[in-house]
């Protein structure tokens, strides 16, 4: 694939460097950011404190007393050249089943509370999103969200929040505006959508994404009690592939009980892939991923 990017390097004060690979989101550009930051990590430069891959960009926090910003930029340019061809990049991923209760009572309460901050106070977030994406019903829209898995393209905002980008051809990508004015309250584990990204809010707090439902399972566990959180308070990793599965209230309650009891473990499979596998035929890739997750 030939892509034209004019990468922009910008100082974020004296300690951060911001690198924008593209103004537009695509799977291709996310893989590129992943590849560059992965190579940078492998260099173990002691003067680099944080490497933060994001959706179509990335950020580096460094010690400017030891490493000049412009030297770092030169190095990053070389790294970018070295990953021009994504063929030799391998992504270590996990396929994860994430049960979501759409139109749950807790999210609905929050949806109704902030109607005055919304583009369309007469609809719910889900009705509005379905309509502007050209779906006849919210059920059809939910089907579009749940039929194909999402790539975890960035972690951030607050600890553990996964930004997820659906693995479908560009013309099938869903997109919704963010709230006109951000909310002061979002329920914990709320499943939201803003711009081209779905998210799960790890903790209760502010937010500006459309709210569709609630995940039964946590993405952040500061006590690290659940088996999936033994190594980190934060579950999602960039490169993971999440399948959001619509569940009934009964299944939701059953999963919640397991979470509360500390016994819940995500249905997941380790999986490695190459960007080319996805970019050549995203439908075929998505189908393969679902078979692997549920049948293997």
């Amino acid at each position, binding site marked *: 694939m030939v892509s034209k990017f004019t990468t922009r390097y*910008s*100082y*974020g*004060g*004296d*300690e*951060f460097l*911001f690198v*924008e690979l*593209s*103004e*537009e*989101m*695509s799977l291709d550009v996310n893989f590129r950011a992943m590849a560059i930051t992965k190579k940078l990590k492998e260099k173990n430069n002691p003067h680099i*404190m*944080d*490497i*933060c891959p*994001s*959706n*179509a*960009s*990335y*950020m580096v*926090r460094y010690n*400017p*007393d030891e490493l000049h*910003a412009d030297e770092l930029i030169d190095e990053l340019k070389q790294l970018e050249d070295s990953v021009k061809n994504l063929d030799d990049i391998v992504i270590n991923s996990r396929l994860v089943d994430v049960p979501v209760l759409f139109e749950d009572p807790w999210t609905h309460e929050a949806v109704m509370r902030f109607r005055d901050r919304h583009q369309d106070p007469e609809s719910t977030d889900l009705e509005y999103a379905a309509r502007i994406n050209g779906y006849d019903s919210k059920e059809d829209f939910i089907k579009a969200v749940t039929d194909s898995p999402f790539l975890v393209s*960035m*972690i*951030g*905002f*607050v*600890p*553990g*929040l996964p*930004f997820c*980008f659906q693995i479908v051809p*560009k013309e099938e*990508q869903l*997109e*919704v*505006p*963010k709230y006109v*004015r*951000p909310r002061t309250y979002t329920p914990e584990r709320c499943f939201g959508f*803003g*711009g*081209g*990204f779905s998210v799960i809010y*790890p*903790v209760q*707090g502010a937010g*500006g994404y459309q709210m569709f439902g609630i995940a039964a399972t946590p993405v*952040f566990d*500061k006590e690290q009690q659940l088996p999936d959180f033994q190594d*980190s*308070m*934060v579950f999602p990793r*960039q490169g993971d592939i999440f399948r959001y599965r619509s569940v009934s209230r009964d299944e939701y309650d059953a999963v919640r009980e397991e979470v509360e009891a500390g016994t819940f473990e995500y249905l997941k499979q380790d999986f490695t892939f190459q960007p080319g596998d996805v970019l050549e035929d995203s439908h075929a890739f998505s189908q393969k991923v679902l078979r692997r997750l549920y049948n293997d």
Partner: protein
Amino acid sequence: MIKVLKPGLQTTVQDNGRAGYYETGMPPSGALDQYSYAVANMLAGNKKGAAVLEITYMGPELSFEQDTVIAVTGAAIPPKINGESVSSWETLEVKKGDILSFDFVKQGARSYLAVAGGIDVPSVMNSRSTYTLCGIGGYEGRALEGDDWLSVGDLKERNIKTGTRVKEQYIPDFPKNHEIRVITGLCNYRLTDESKQRFLNLEWTVTPEANRVGYRLKGERLEFVPREQPFGAGSNPSNVVDLGYPIGSIQIPDGVEPIALLNDAVTGGGYATVATIISTDLNKIAQAKTNEKIKFTSVTMEEAMQARKDMKQKLEEVERTLESN
């Protein structure tokens, strides 16, 4: 041990912060005014990186259950021991049973109380700093409350004589009008040329929404260059495809009320960022109070590096003068 009689408005345990977890969405936290924080530890004879109490606007009331040495730096929130005024920026002696309290804030917003040995709370991800949004670090992940008991650690490095005081030239003043230096860039190409200028020429007012996450500022609406929004960004002209936010970066949601992010920042999101406060001036904005004025000045990387050098040198001089005491 130290007993908290009254917690003050918001008193948290902080140190030099939590590096290396930004990519998981974990901000560094740590003392907002790192200069005052470092000097407080020096005056108490502590090792670098020891945890202190960060006091906001209104001080706590603390009862010391042991003899020790303390120091208060940062904003002028005048300390009192057993009701008697004592000096800030000076090594103070407290005896078992003494009560430390504070007068009303005179200048600045945040003071730092160092106790010889440091405040001892469990280290979480290599830092004792409190990140209240997620309840991580510090004293049970939260600001202090009445009847909390603070343990004192063993990070004392040397004895500093009671009455040792930092020379006047090393004590920052805390004006009501703040000149904050930034490096412009990030996504400022999104602003019209006129708005880029206005951002730097305007006098911004600190709103009541000013905390450790960030400061929201009031001024006038700024305009973005019209465009067809790139895929994934969202429809508002202030939206970009969600990206990382540097500490100190300034975003302008919908063109109104810029938000300058501080140490408990949200680590990323979908608003165009237009400039970043240089590291030395994060100390200064942390001392700005609600309704005070802020003017942003654009500097080059070389100027930012010079400011950094000056501050480092200042801290080394303070350390040397204290050692020779």
